[in-house]
């Protein structure tokens, strides 16, 4: 019975992959998060226009067509958390948390702050450091600035990821032996819901290298 169930699951999984469900940078990477507010599409971390700052980007809810973009919504029960390891043990020493407040339609940023608990469960840590109203689809970008020099943006943006993902799937399925030249960007013309947080490096307090990862967590 159990074996049979697993067998069916394997067939279903194989079918889903062949049928063309998109799994890309981290877009729709596993069934639990597919089409959920917690589905991360991408993480970017880079030096800002002001070289004293770092920029953290969390994208979610990818592959939105222009027609569907206005309906992309942040979720008050979802917490996006940038985790920062400063000493190379891959355990977070600082977190930057982003939470949506439905009443004010704002994204609220907490941290960077030393978390009181580490790992897969979190609570809001410390005090709010910046907030910003969610930029509506078609509106010009609203930029929030906190007292410690943190900048924040929240709203729909063009998906910055580019990849001929359909050809990659054909290669994996044995239907092609190599990529086409020129390739076709599977993510062209699609949007994501973006959180952009620019943070003075002095608030991170590391000189050298840090390890960063992004977590999406659901209220329990």
């Amino acid at each position, binding site marked *: 019975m159990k074996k049979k169930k697993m067998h069916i699951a394997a067939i279903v999984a194989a079918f889903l992959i062949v049928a063309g469900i998109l799994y890309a940078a981290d877009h729709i990477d596993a069934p639990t998060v597919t089409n959920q507010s917690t589905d991360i599409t991408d993480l970017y971390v880079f030096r800002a226009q002001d070289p004293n700052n770092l920029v953290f980007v969390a994208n979610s809810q990818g592959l939105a067509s222009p027609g569907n973009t206005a309906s992309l919504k942040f979720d008050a029960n979802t917490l996006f958390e940038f985790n920062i390891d400063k000493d190379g043990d891959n355990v977070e020493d600082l977190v930057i948390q982003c939470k949506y407040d439905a009443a004010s339609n704002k994204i609220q940023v907490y941290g960077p702050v030393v978390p009181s608990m580490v790992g897969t469960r979190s609570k809001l840590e410390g005090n709010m450091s910046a907030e910003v109203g969610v930029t509506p689809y078609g509106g010009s970008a609203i930029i929030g600035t906190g007292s410690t020099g943190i900048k924040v943006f929240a709203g729909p943006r063009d998906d910055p990821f580019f990849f001929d993902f359909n050809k990659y799937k054909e290669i994996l399925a044995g239907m092609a032996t190599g990529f086409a030249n020129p390739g076709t*960007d599977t993510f062209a013309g699609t949007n994501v819901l973006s959180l952009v947080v620019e943070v003075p490096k002095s608030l991170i307090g590391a000189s050298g290298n840090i390890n960063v990862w992004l977590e999406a*967590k659901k*209220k329990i």
Partner: protein
Amino acid sequence: MKSTIKLIAIIFTSGVLISSCKKNDTMSPTVYYEQQDQMGRPGINTVFVADVADKETFNVTTPSLMGAAFQSKFQARLSALNPGYTVNVLGLDNTTFTSVLATDVLNVSTTGPTKFFTSTTDYLTGRGLADDVIDNELTLIFGGSTGASNPGLTSDHVNANDKVFLTSFPYLASPW
């Protein structure tokens, strides 16, 4: 089935939280958030975790525990993707390369420029919006010791985004 187990776990956990709050009903209960998804480097779960159940597990395994849980599976996956893999352009053999990949964190420089891959001596200092991370990863997987092996597989020939990025905050292009 899995969702039933998850639901039971959530109900059980909430029950514990509620009962512990009763002991101190002057405080508002602390809100907790439980992990569902995570990522460090681009494409890792997608490319190196083959099994759907493992994809779920990978998303809720903290990075400090990922190496022990996933390195051998990543190595098997690398062998399946490129049976001829010996070393890549960074000189990493299959064990070393998959050890680096299995701990899925993005390494970022706080002092210099930030780019996913600049050269074989300057890489993993961050991830910029325009970085062609897919070509970088394909080259490391398929390109062999010189990066020139399997030329049909080392670039997807999509080299840039379909919109121009902004030079100032918020950097990402406006939506379509």
